[in-house]
């Protein structure tokens, strides 16, 4: 499998481009890109370029270097460069649209990028799409500059030899839904480990020896996948990952993938949940692990974001598909100005980076309304549904609550 990546950048045109400039540039770009196996798209609006390049890693990086030297633009900023599982623009050697601010809202045909969303619906809901949406909303225009140096990832930690599996305490799962409030739909369930019907995850975890945690973690995920499959899970499956697993990370990913495949759950429906704090200890290993997971098509949620020692700088090193807000941030937010301000800042940062936000632990209708007004769409909490023991409980959706 080749190492597919996408690189999304913006830049400022050094002079106003005419129709003719574009046709010359695009003709060259398209034939070159086809021969290089590069796909992607290019937007131009009022002197600002916004481009997605996707293809084999070394080719994209080399091409980006060439692009950077091009005198027709300047102040090139790499917004995102990361591995992808598949192309968002596989049919396009270079999609292109030019628009003014006025017609941004109602463009048809090939240019219906932003409204009828033919293109936006054709591409999956990955990062490229989110950044395009952010761009549509006026982000990432012109102000940025020059070239981003990409940081090579540390070499992958050597996978430990698989240990003999000891008998472990019996455990099972409860499932709690995550809802999309704007679509009024369940998008997925989080699998929560349980010892019995009334217990909590802590009951199970307390009984596990430190040395067994890695194997437990791997088994738990496989078991959760099997469970979810038997229960007929339709949407995403959120699985918790213990930081303990970094060293044996590739192995555990593989085993999860295998199980998912066998159970008929598409890999793209699996979301790995990683506690924000767990990312602090070894950023290089985490970064490598996240890249590997993403390359395989898994999605990552950084859970409990904003808690403890874990900082915003995480988002400087890598950009997960989604983050879950720390509970303290959600609690009574409707009446807590500082939490609101912090949340608005996070919303700003995440929308600029194409990172989804899940509000977890939402307990009251007031919390829900406030967050909803700020544009949060994904929710989980007692307000919608308690975790269902060995079942997929249907959530109450906001209108039902009202």
């Amino acid at each position, binding site marked *: 499998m080749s190492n597919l990546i996408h690189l999304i950048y913006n830049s400022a045109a050094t002079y106003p481009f005419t129709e003719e400039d574009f046709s010359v540039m695009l003709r060259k770009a398209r034939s070159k890109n086809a021969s290089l196996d590069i796909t992607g798209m290019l937007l131009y609006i009022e002197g600002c370029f916004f481009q997605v390049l996707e293809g084999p890693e070394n080719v994209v990086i080399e091409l980006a270097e060439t692009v950077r030297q091009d005198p027709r633009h300047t*102040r*090139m900023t790499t917004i995102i460069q990361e591995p992808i599982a598949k192309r968002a623009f596989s049919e396009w050697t270079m999609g292109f649209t030019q628009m003014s601010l006025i017609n941004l809202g109602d463009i048809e045909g090939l240019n219906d990028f932003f409204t009828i969303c033919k293109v936006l619906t054709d591409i999956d809901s990955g990062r490229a799409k989110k950044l395009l949406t952010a761009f549509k909303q006026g982000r990432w225009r012109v102000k*940025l500059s*020059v070239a981003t*140096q990409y940081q090579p990832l540390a070499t992958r930690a050597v996978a430990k030899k698989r240990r003999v599996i000891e008998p472990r305490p019996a455990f099972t799962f409860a499932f709690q839904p995550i809802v999309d409030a704007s679509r009024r739909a369940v998008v997925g369930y989080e699998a929560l480990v349980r010892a019995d019907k009334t217990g909590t995850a802590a009951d199970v975890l307390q009984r596990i020896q430190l040395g067994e945690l890695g194997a437990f973690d791997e088994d738990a995920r496989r078991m959760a996948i099997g469970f979810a499959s038997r229960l007929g899970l339709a949407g995403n499956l959120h699985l918790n990952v213990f930081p303990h697993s970094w060293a044996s990370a590739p192995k555990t990913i593989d085993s999860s993938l295998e199980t998912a495949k066998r159970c008929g759950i598409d890999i793209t429906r699996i979301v790995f949940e990683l506690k924000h704090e767990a990312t602090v200890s070894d950023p290089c290993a985490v970064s490598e692990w996240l890249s590997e997971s993403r390359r395989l098509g898994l999605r990552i949620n950084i859970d409990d974001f904003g808690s403890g020692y874990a900082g915003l700088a995480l*988002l400087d*090193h890598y950009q997960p598909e989604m983050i879950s807000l*720390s509970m*303290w941030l959600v609690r009574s937010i409707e009446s807590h100005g500082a939490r609101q301000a912090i949340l*608005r800042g996070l919303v700003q940062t995440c929308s600029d980076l194409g990172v989804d936000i899940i509000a977890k632990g939402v307990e009251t209708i007031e919390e829900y309304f406030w967050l909803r007004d700020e544009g949060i769409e994904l929710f989980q909490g007692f307000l919608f549904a308690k975790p269902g023991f060995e079942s997929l409980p249907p959530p109450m959706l906001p209108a039902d609550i009202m």
Partner: protein
Amino acid sequence: MVLEFTFAYQPIVDVDKRETHSFEALVRGPNNEPANWVLKQHTTAQLRTFDMDARLRAIRLGAQLGLPCHINLNLLPDTMADCEEKSSVDALQTMVEMAEQCGLKPDQLVLELSETETIKDFDCFVERANQCRRLGVKFAIDDFGSGYSGLNLLAEFQPESVKLDMVLVRDIEHRGPRQAIVRGVLRTCEDLGIDIVAEGVETIAEYEWLRNEGIFLFQGYLFARPAFEALPTVTFP
């Protein structure tokens, strides 16, 4: 053992007003050895006393040098947030009194909180900080946005300013994720009426990007290097 140490001062500039907003007092060895050199000579147990003593000396020297503006002083929050320890209140009281004796007003003092993750008792910390604030003393959170986020501190305690960690400042003009983080921090701080100081600004490109986003308080080599036992003059870009 009484260890010799002294201070260098580095300005924080207000580029809107084109004036020096404050001088941060940076601890130095007697021959301009860096801060770490000084800190390493103290055991953890001694750090607290050192922390309190250092502020008094920094104020005294600053006043002798004719400090015309604010002075930023580092504070280990632990020094202040130990509610078992009555001396911590007294120490801050002493600091304010000494500043006044030196001819400085309490509202010229800005306490920079670093290592805020070590605050064990939030409520106590906030209470003590508010006691100082009532006297006019201001607060800043240092190294904001990198490593420890300080978001939960910010939810409970809004300082007058936060200092954007230089890790986020570095090369910001061509680092997309950093830009997004800084915009978010700006949004939060704007909403909370907290000034942002961009620390460690070294290049004109970094300065311009940050300036363009509305930041007007800056510190870094681009403006002035720390000056040993002196208040350096500022170069405005």
